């Protein structure tokens, strides 16, 4: 018996030890900054800066190297976890097609000379092209669009060809720049990031944004054999090798630097990449338009768009909870904050002080047919769509931006269109324009370089407008370009030009043919969520005729067909075409609202008559009953 007890005790010992070891192992995987201890106070980041080699940066180093975010921030925060998050995972992390969620804003490759504006993205959204499909290598993609990428993702990929791999050793990796969002230093200059990216100073880009560092030179000008660790001055004295200088006094006696880090990024940080402006004919200055009502009410972007260390940020649309692992996604949409939850469940309405809307007089069918944003977001619709500019599309916030309203790409908004879930929502829209190879029904864009060489040569004699707009293309221009493409490029099928919803090709006798509404020429749209207007500026606040009138922009506004093709440049489509609604029905229904006041008057008068009859005969019946009860005949 005693032996059995001892044996049992020995056998049970691992069971006691193992859970502790498992728990210890689990907590060992999390780094110091991955989990909160519960304090809402911000930790002070007086920390050493680390190079990409893992060496501590010292102000007397030679050569002085830029700090690496993966090594500096990664000392306490799990960099590999962070870079699987939404801002970093496009094209590099397999999160599953569904997890990419609702379509969003693409990158837009635009070139006025060749009449191109094409949506591209590493995300598998319908209607966009992968950068490699339009001939953009990783490096070229980064040079063009890295200005508004927070680093990471494809920025850390080595490249496909040996020459690109060599260049990536000179330029370095474009690491995730934690400071893009989390640097609260008022001297943080994100525009400097864009400038460094253009020079291929990827290794230096993050550090260049700091107020205590200055980066000079250009990795782009260095030969493939240049080694930043042992830099040799270039042969050409005009070329300057990339170098960094830290401000005197930035380092303390222990060679640490004070970084002003905030977990809750300020709206200013988000604005660099996520600003919008709508050119509605009036002065488009910031002071003359209002910010999103949520910001005016005191919220910041990250009050709604939250994430944990996984950086799986909430995008905030209805249905996101079905595809997102973020446990707050269901309660961080419009409905999630503003409307009561299921009866009986734990109350979640009114988060962050969100008012619960009454929607006085609004038939509930609207909530089945429209998103919240249809009435509350974006600019108040006008007779025609406006040109819109965004940070990502138009390089807003960087040096040397073309401030002209007509600068490419041409983004139109608001376009009220039906989404995949069947609800109508406001969208931004671009009409793709590109040169392509059409074989059978497949339309494949021709590479950007090839188009620039061939079509660019044909269009060289065109004077480009100073506004950045594309020049008008005549039918002859298109014919000439298509013939040049067919002759000079390896076209498997036939060369075509997609623009303004139409496909242009040459027929057997060399004449231009146009096919309208070709599937490959469909516009690309992405939903608008901001800026949210206050309730007093929602559609329908005046009367039903804000939308249900025969001239209401919601159904009958003109969506400009944007194209450089001269013959159709000023054409437009009606908004109802994008809503899968019969135009005749829309007009008839809108017209019926003219009679709505009369309907109300007739109905109320009829009720009054019915009420009077009931009252009169009810009183007479009451008199009879009372008489019978009192014995009268």
């Amino acid at each position: 018996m005693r032996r059995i007890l001892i044996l049992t005790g020995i056998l049970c010992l691992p069971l006691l030890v193992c859970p502790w070891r498992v728990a210890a192992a689990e907590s060992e995987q999390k780094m110091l900054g991955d989990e909160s201890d519960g304090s809402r106070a911000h930790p002070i980041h007086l920390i050493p800066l680390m190079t990409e080699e893992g060496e501590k940066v010292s102000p007397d180093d030679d050569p002085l190297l830029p700090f690496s975010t993966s090594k500096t921030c990664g000392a306490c925060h799990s960099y590999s976890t962070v870079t699987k998050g939404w801002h970093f995972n496009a094209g590099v992390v397999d999160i599953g097609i569904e997890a990419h969620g609702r379509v969003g804003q693409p990158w837009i490759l635009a070139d006025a000379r060749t009449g191109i504006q094409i949506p591209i993205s590493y995300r598998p959204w319908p209607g966009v092209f992968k950068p490699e499909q339009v001939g953009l290598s990783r490096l070229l993609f980064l040079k063009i669009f890295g200005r508004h990428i927070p680093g990471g993702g494809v920025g850390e990929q080595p490249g496909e060809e040996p020459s690109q791999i060599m260049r990536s050793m000179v330029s370095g990796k474009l690491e995730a720049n934690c400071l893009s969002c989390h640097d609260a230093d008022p001297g943080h200059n994100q525009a400097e990031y864009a400038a460094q990216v253009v020079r291929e100073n990827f290794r230096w880009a993050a550090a260049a944004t700091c107020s205590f560092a200055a980066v000079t030179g250009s990795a782009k000008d260095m030969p493939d054999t240049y080694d930043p660790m042992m830099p040799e001055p270039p042969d050409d004295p005009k070329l300057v090798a990339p170098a960094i200088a830290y401000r005197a006094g930035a380092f303390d006696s222990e060679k640490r630097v004070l970084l002003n880090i905030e977990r809750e990024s300020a709206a200013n940080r988000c604005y660099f990449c996520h600003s919008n402006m709508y050119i509605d004919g009036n002065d488009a200055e910031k002071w003359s338009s209002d910010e999103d009502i949520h910001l005016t009410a005191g919220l910041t972007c990250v009050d709604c768009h939250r994430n944990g260390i996984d950086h799986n940020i909430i995008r905030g649309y209805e249905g996101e909870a079905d595809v997102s692992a973020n446990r707050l996604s269901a309660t961080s949409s419009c409905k999630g904050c503003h409307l009561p939850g299921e009866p009986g469940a734990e109350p979640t309405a009114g988060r962050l002080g969100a008012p619960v809307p009454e929607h006085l007089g609004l038939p509930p069918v609207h909530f089945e047919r429209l998103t919240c944003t249809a009435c509350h977001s974006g600019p108040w619709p006008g007779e025609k769509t406006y040109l819109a500019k965004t940070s990502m599309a138009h390089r807003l916030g960087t040096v040397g931006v073309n401030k002209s309203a007509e600068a490419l790409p041409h983004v139109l908004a608001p376009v009220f269109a039906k989404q995949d879930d069947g609800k109508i929502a406001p969208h931004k829209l671009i009409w793709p324009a590109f040169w392509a190879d059409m074989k059978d029904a497949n339309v494949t864009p021709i590479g950007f370089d090839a188009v620039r060489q061939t079509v660019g040569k044909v269009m060289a004699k065109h004077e480009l407008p100073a506004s950045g707009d594309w020049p008008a293309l005549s039918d002859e221009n298109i014919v000439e370009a298509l013939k040049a493409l067919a002759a000079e490029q390896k076209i498997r099928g036939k060369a075509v030009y997609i623009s303004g919803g139409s496909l242009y090709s040459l027929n057997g006798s060399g004449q231009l043919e146009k096919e309208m509404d070709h599937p490959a020429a469909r516009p690309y749209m992405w939903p608008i969520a901001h800026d949210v207007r206050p309730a007093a500026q929602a559609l329908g606040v005046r009367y039903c005729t804000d939308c249900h009138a025969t001239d209401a922009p919601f159904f009958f506004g003109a969506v400009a067909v944007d194209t450089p093709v001269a013959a159709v440049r000023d054409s437009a489509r009606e908004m109802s075409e994008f809503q899968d609604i019969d135009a005749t029905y829309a007009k008839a229904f809108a017209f019926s609202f003219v009679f709505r006041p009369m309907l109300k008057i007739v109905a109320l008068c009829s009720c009054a008559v019915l009420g009077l009859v009931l009252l009169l005969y009810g009183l007479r019946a009451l008199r009879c009953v009372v008489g019978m009860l009192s014995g009268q005949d």
Partner: protein
Amino acid sequence: MYLVAVVCGAVLAITGFYPVLIKGEHISGYLMMLHATCAPVFAACMAALAVMWAGRCRFERFDCPLTARLVSWLGGKETGDEVACGGSGVGQKALFWLLIVLSLPLILSIVLSMFPLFGTHYQNLFLGIHRYVAAVFVLAAALHMVLLFRTRSK
């Protein structure tokens, strides 16, 4: 007038119940426009019928001894000689008044929801009232028509 009311009522019933019962969705589209076109006509017809028929549809002594017995019982008095029931005329009258009474919530539930007075909760409530009152109304109207045709055919 009665015919117009019946036709309008039938259109309203079909356009109102078909999408809900058959398609499982809110009324919309051309059905909605037809429904909204016939509705004021129907309301006006009901008001006119109320005025025109209220006199002849009032309950009288010979309509049915049940009511006389009820009133006497309430007053604690003997009824006296009973008169034979007037037959289906009583039923028609009762249904007539039921239809008039139901018309009020039927019309008001929708008209009130058209004004910016009530929020989503009450909008749904009014819609529910409209639906269920309409269902009872349709049944009562059908019964009324049957009794009316029986009377006319005798």
